[in-house]
């Protein structure tokens, strides 16, 4: 298995500079405020302000020194190639464990956990020095850790050289080759996820924010009478269920098909239970159109497609079909497509040429099915409308059933994990990858279709495989790359690459900056002293640190609030304006590079403008 990579030298240097900046700034600021506070010649209001900010800065300094470093969870992959001479273990503990609980785990196993990096403590990604243990004891310790329910993943942390960079086997930087292995106990049986490169795709996207409508037999995400809910859908997000057969706002699954399909898309993953889903952070919209016998009417399905399009679905999966075209369904698909919804459909299980409907409509992405060997499954329909192939299982007898697609469902009133096979199972793999692509910023059906096709693993028969077998890792990688250089496609719920401890460091640095510039405040253009460093800092930090936080952390509201008290200090208004303007300029620069969300840039502009107006009134 490919080791997880992290360029430690660049990140370490940036991290050091980042913290050093904050620390030096804080020390200078504290010194300045202390002098102001103790200078009896200063007006009382200024000394009070100094006292207030002295306290704030001291608090922030303490927090920035001791606050655990933020870091996105990177579950560690068990590595078959892990070096036997590894000097340390990388242990990913459950995120909900308190710091003391983490330490307790370490004590229990006789090791001391230290943060893996300045970017990975919030997620409890720890290193443990095992250099004094023999290889056998190290292996035994690793086994015990992996069996511990408090540990999501554990592995040996080994290093290698790549292109002159020192690479660690954990916590990869974005853009590096990396893998995420969920801790779901039956994940190793899900060959179908590995076949399409999910471990690498998850590093970049999990489908967060994308709503996938599953038009099917319903979904057992909640209990109904004596029918239990599917246990491995706890934690999966659901929205706006609807039953078009009974016209109720519930979508109970009395068949099992829809629950299995929904599980492929967004099974609760990394929860230590059951198995994994392709886009496990996506939201499922369960729409029931098929009865307990697995059949339904074209009218209900057309209604469901329109409902999905009108209620916020971004992707529709239809693991269903029929032999004949129907205008009403074609029209509904066209409508949804025009509203920016990507429609993915099962090609059919006829085992012969002839793609069913709705898969054969041009608005739909028709998916044929392949087995573990990547070849067309015996039951799969094929034809010129096939857009892409995806794993759907391929077995002939009970002994080969593990070659089916494993997901959780409810069948005969039992919560079960079963291997099913069909283009119904292939389609949600493609729909899930569409959700992953959607999260990276390529939103429209044409763009998603192009990404799926352009990155597919090519096969020699277009009628059977379309552009080839879906490759989630390549699709998401290409999509993320293109979204970065196409700001117009950035998500409406984007993330900002800023270090997790950035807000605190910024706060400390800004206050320090203001303090240092206190005496120069009356000089012409002194505000540049606030604007330029912040602009530079923002660009450098966001450009290289590679952390994702919500946009609010990057808004000029925070420096504004932190420095608001300074507005009353004589001569410091310019600094305040400069700081906010610099922050805005930095965010704008980042935005022009494709990361910045327009609403927050506007918010920053508004704050900077407000301050300028206030200053002009004085």
């Amino acid at each position, binding site marked *: 298995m490919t080791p997880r990579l992290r360029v430690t030298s660049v990140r370490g240097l940036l991290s050091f500079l980042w913290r050093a900046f904050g620390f030096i700034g804080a020390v200078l600021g504290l010194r300045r405020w202390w002098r102001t506070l103790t200078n009896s010649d200063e007006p009382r209001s200024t000394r009070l302000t100094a006292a207030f900010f002295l306290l704030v800065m001291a608090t922030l300094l303490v927090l920035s020194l001791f606050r655990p470093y933020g870091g996105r969870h990177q579950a560690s992959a068990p590595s078959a190639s892990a070096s036997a001479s590894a000097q340390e273990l990388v242990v990913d503990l459950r995120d909900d464990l308190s710091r003391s609980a983490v330490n307790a785990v370490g004590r229990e196993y006789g090791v001391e956990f230290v943060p893996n990096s300045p970017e990975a403590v919030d997620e409890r990604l720890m290193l443990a020095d095992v250099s004094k243990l023999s290889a056998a004891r190290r292996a035994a310790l690793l086994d015990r850790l992996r069996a511990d329910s408090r540990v999501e993943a554990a592995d040996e942390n080994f290093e290698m050289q790549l292109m002159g960079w020192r690479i660690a086997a954990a916590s990869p930087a974005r853009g590096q080759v990396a893998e995420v292995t969920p801790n779901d106990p039956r994940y190793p049986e899900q060959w179908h996820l590995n076949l399409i490169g999910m471990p690498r795709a998850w590093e970049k996207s999990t489908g967060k924010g994308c709503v996938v409508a599953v038009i*099917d*037999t319903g979904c057992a995400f909640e209990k109904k009478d004596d029918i239990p809910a599917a246990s491995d859908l706890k934690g999966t997000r659901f929205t706006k269920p609807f039953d078009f057969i009974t016209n109720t706002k519930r979508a109970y699954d009395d*068949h*099992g*098909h829809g629950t299995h399909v929904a599980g492929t898309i967004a099974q609760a993953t990394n929860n230590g239970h059951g198995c994994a889903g392709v886009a496990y952070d996506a939201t499922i919209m369960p729409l029931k*159109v*098929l009865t307990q016998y*697995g*059949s*339904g*009417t*074209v*009218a209900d*399905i057309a209604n469901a497609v329109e409902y999905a399009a009108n209620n916020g679905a971004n992707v529709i999966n239809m*693991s*269903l*079909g*029929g*032999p*004949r075209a*129907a205008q009403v369904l074609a029209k509904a698909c066209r409508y949804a497509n025009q509203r920016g919804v990507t429609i993915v459909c*099962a*090609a*059919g*299980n*006829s*085992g012969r040429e002839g793609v*069913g409907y709705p*898969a054969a409509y041009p608005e739909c992405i028709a998916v044929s099915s392949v087995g573990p060997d990547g070849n067309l499954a015996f*039951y799969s*329909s094929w034809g010129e409308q096939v857009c892409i192939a995806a794993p759907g*299982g391929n*077995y*002939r007898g009970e002994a080969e*059933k593990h070659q*089916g697609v494993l997901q959780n469902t409810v*069948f005969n009133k039992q919560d079960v994990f*079963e291997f*099913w*096979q*069909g*283009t*119904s*199972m292939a389609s949600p793999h493609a729909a899930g990858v569409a959700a992953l692509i959607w999260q990276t910023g390529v939103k429209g059906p044409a763009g998603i279709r192009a990404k799926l096709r352009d990155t597919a693993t090519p096969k020699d028969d277009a009628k059977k495989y379309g552009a080839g077998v879906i490759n989630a890792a390549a699709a998401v990688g290409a999509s993320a790359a293109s979204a970065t250089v196409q700001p117009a496609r950035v998500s409406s719920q984007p993330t900002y690459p800023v270090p997790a401890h950035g807000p605190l460091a910024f706060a400390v640095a800004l206050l320090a900056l203001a303090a240092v510039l206190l005496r120069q405040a009356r000089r012409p253009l002194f505000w540049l002293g606030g604007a330029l460093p912040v602009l530079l800092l923002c660009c450098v930090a966001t450009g290289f640190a590679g952390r994702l936080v919500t946009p609010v952390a990057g808004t000029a509201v925070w420096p504004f609030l932190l420095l608001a008290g300074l507005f009353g200090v004589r001569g410091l208004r310019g600094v305040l304006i400069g700081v906010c303007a610099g922050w805005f300029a930095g965010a704008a620069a980042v935005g022009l590079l494709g990361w910045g969300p327009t609403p927050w840039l506007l918010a920053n502009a508004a704050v900077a403008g407000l301050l300028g107006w206030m200053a002009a009134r004085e």
Partner: protein
Amino acid sequence: MAVDSALKAKIEAWIKATGRNEFGDPDGTMYAGGTPLFDERTGKTKDRFEHIAEKHPEVKDWEADR
């Protein structure tokens, strides 16, 4: 359930006369996976005529000239 050639012919005629789809269901019927003949849970495939004869036993008594 074995379906002889005579019954197969009758089924085809019944489908044509009643405007049903190839699986003997009303036109516009859709199925999980696109066909009622393949059970995605068991992986087993049914014969189309056997499926129709089982689901619509009345077809055996159907007369084309009715």
